[in-house]
């Protein structure tokens, strides 16, 4: 027996609903994967091509032009590419997940399902791409420095944080975009800003040299702990410190508040779409 009341609190959630969100997200993720095959000439090759292209751009800009040096005598490509797969995954989730409600409004306005399923489903393709890119990195690292998998548990943890931080941001934007479409126009700038402010292509020490005692401000970016976590995991450098806790808490906070924001927007969503 199910009762729905006007005064139900927003956080009221049934196990059936969580179950439903998962199965719908799974169906959408499956659709995205199937669509990757349909109507594309190269299909899965893009999973290889995308990280390689991104790596090439990072290398050209930050190593050749800006001439960033990697610390501790690491070769620059190895240092920069360690965190790149996790960032590309987060970028995919935000870029695809944030507008997913608006893009699928014909479905959203006709079938009731837990709305976070749509952004969540975007993690499917992103995760597959992440695994392919990570494998590329392992091969690259094995070739230059030798295979080292001692930090694998850190890889798993960092990628998990990367997924839910990205989902948190995607949930927030998706919830707001129902009423304020303009926020979607800001999406490219947001992603560009996030990429530049996250120490992926440059070492985190640059934060301290730029802001000194105020460098904690830059750790408000949830992706700092992910980038450093990945490098720590793959290369054993960039020890994690207290500042990274700020970044980690931001990621967690974004996910929790984002879920809540989307749940709140769900109630009258179709009146605004």
């Amino acid at each position, binding site marked *: *027996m*199910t*009762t*729905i*009341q*006007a005064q*139900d609190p927003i956080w009221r959630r049934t196990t059936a609903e969580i179950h*439903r969100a998962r*199965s*719908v997200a*799974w*169906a*959408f993720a*499956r*659709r995205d994967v*199937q*669509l990757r095959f*349909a*109507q594309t000439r190269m299909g899965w090759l893009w999973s290889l091509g995308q990280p390689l292209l991104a790596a090439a751009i990072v290398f050209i800009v930050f190593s050749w032009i800006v001439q960033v040096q990697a610390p501790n005598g690491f070769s620059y490509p190895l240092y920069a590419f360690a965190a790149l797969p996790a960032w590309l995954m987060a970028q995919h989730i935000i870029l695809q997940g944030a507008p997913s409600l608006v893009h699928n409004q*014909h*479905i959203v*306005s*006709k*079938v*009731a*399902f837990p709305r976070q399923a749509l952004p969540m489903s975007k993690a499917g393709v992103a995760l597959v791409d992440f695994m392919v890119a990570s494998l590329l990195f392992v091969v690259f690292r094995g070739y230059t420095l030798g295979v080292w998998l001692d930090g694998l548990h850190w890889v798993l943890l960092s990628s998990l944080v990367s997924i839910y931080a990205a989902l948190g941001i995607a949930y927030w934007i998706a919830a707001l975009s129902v009423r304020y479409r303009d926020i979607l126009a800001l999406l490219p700038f947001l992603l560009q800003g996030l990429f530049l402010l996250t120490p992926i292509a440059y070492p985190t020490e640059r934060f301290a040299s730029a802001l000194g005692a105020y460098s904690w401000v830059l750790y408000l970016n949830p992706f700092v702990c992910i980038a450093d976590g990945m490098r720590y995991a793959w290369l054993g450098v960039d020890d994690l410190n207290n500042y990274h806790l700020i970044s980690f808490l931001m990621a967690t906070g974004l996910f929790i508040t984002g879920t809540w924001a989307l749940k709140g927007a769900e*109630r*009258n*969503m*179709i*009146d605004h779409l």
Partner: protein
Amino acid sequence: MSLGKDTAIQIQGLGKQYRGRGAFKGRDFWALQPLDLEVKEGQALGLIGPNGAGKSTLLKMLSGLTHPSVGKYTYRGHMTSLLEVGTGFHPDLSGRENIYLSGALYGMKRSEIAKSIDAIQDFSGLHDRYMDHPIKHYSSGMKVRLGFSVAAHLQADILVVDEVLAVGDARFQAKCMQRMESQMQEHGRTVLFVSHNLYALQSLCHEALWLQDGEAVQHGPAEAITQAYLESVQDPKQGIQIAHDHAGSGKLRITNLMWLKGPPQTGQSNTLKITYQGDSDHQEVDVRLNVLGRDGRFLSPIAMHAHGFRPEHLPAQGELMVHFASIPWMEGSYSMDLRLTERGVVAQEAKNIWGFKVSSGSFLAEGDPYTAGKNGVHVSQQWTINS
């Protein structure tokens, strides 16, 4: 709250209020006034009423698409809403893949879909070789059939259906109605049904609820309620003001329909006056009025282009006259659907917009009145003896 032993849905004081925003600030309105309703298990309840009466709002709240402003509802078992067929279909995916996607959206498990996929394909009548083709290569009829077939195999104790039977060819529609009826009888499924097709509604539903302007007007046996509703759209002055809230672009609207010589009588001449409004001159306008019988079945068109009347220009606002030398309809009640297009774009569309009564008379001056006890249309004919 507990439910009565054989109650499927219990609705208590359920209402939806929309707040006016921007230019409409302060003009809040109730899309549905607080409503009490109980639907028994295995029953089918039909919702009738003009556009904007609150039918869809009620269904949207029950399906969980929008949250109620006041009140609550309780239901037993699994409830599935069907507001559209083929929801979630993606043109680039194959028929089979789309069945899985659409089924999952409606809350079916993958294993359940896998079990019924043959039955779904069978019901749709689609050939094996189509199932693995992207549905963008399907005809629109095939897509509708596939969508319906998924819908027909949804596992639910309570099914909420909104106007979906309006699409698809007649034979397939009948098949779907049959399937719904058999599901109700065999599995005790409860159905909430909105349709402008009063005939379909009467044949499927035991009970009907008549909503108007967000308020419940009458609730009772389907036949009595549909009859009362049909009579209410028949204005005693034989004219009707058509409200604003109908579908279409709204650039051109019919605002009034009226029989100039009073209530029409079979065989007598009469003129239908159509008053319309718009902002600027109109081009390539087509007016289609579908005359429906008491049971909601289509009887005859009153259509501009179909009768070869194609004025190049129409003034921004004015009146159109349709002359009938001899009213062809037999004694009885009739209703009308309206569809107005300008250069092929729908400007106004409304179902059951108006009803009128035709009084008894003979079709030809020299003929006898013909009463069949139901709706009918006289057709001109000539009788001769061949010897």
